[in-house]
């Protein structure tokens, strides 16, 4: 039987895995949500990593809260989920840098606040972050 390949990645490393009738293709469900978030090939996989970590159901619920939103392809939800993961990584990295500048080892809301202030790209967050950034 012919075989095809699936590429699995964790963002840094890639494994190319052959899918054939002799191995099993399974869809795993993210434990935090109810949607199949990725495909994992057993037996031949050296590294089994999820393609998307955020549960698609949660991402979809967020999208639906927009009154303009009606329909989206599954691909759109997948990409938005991945983009959100990259967004978290990006803010975390920058806020972590600011934390180090303060010579501290625990990330605080003030680091997140400063990160947002410094980046004009994050202006869309203005006004929406007050309740989580207000220091008690």
């Amino acid at each position, binding site marked *: 039987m012919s075989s095809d390949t699936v590429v699995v990645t964790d963002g840094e490393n890639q494994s190319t895995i052959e899918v054939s009738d002799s191995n099993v293709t399974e*869809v795993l469900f993210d434990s*935090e*949500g109810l949607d199949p978030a990725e495909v994992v090939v057993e037996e031949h996989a050296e590294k089994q990593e999820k393609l*998307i970590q955020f549960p698609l159901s949660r991402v979809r619920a967020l999208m639906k809260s927009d009154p303009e939103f009606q329909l989206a392809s599954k691909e759109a939800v997948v990409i938005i989920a991945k*983009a959100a993961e990259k967004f978290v990584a990006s803010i*975390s990295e920058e806020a972590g840098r600011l934390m180090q500048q303060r010579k501290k080892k625990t990330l605080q809301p003030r680091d997140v606040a400063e990160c*947002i202030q410094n980046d004009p790209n994050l202006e869309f967050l203005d006004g929406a972050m007050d309740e989580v950034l207000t220091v008690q």
Partner: protein
Amino acid sequence: MADASDFKLPDSIVSRILKRSMPESGNVSKLARTAISHAAAIFVLYTTTQACQVSSKHRRKLVTGDDVLQAMKDMDFSEFVPDLEDTLEQYRQSQAAKIRSKEVKADEDSVPIEHEFEDHDEDDDEMPVDTEGDSEAVLDTEEGIEPSI
């Protein structure tokens, strides 16, 4: 029934990404994690709005993967695009592999199968599909298909 947790992203996953992105010796206060999680939720909302605008320009109600990629550029997050394109490609491959393995099993059982796509060309990937299972239903099945405004 909706509750507040429907409108944010899982804490455990946010934590995991946070820890990977920070210097190794760093800790994360719970409030900082909440702030970042909240920001990510706003990001999803903002991206959705932008992507809707892109699809509207094309006179479509359906938001596609390409609309989202365009939205990223419009939002000045172009640096995300290469990785997102990779993810999209891998996702498409995994979906195709899933279909082929179903075909193999179906052949063995001698049961006629219904293809989700007859011809696997690019446009078919943009068909609205339910994220829970393989049925060819639109995403907002709970409310049914909404009439155009």
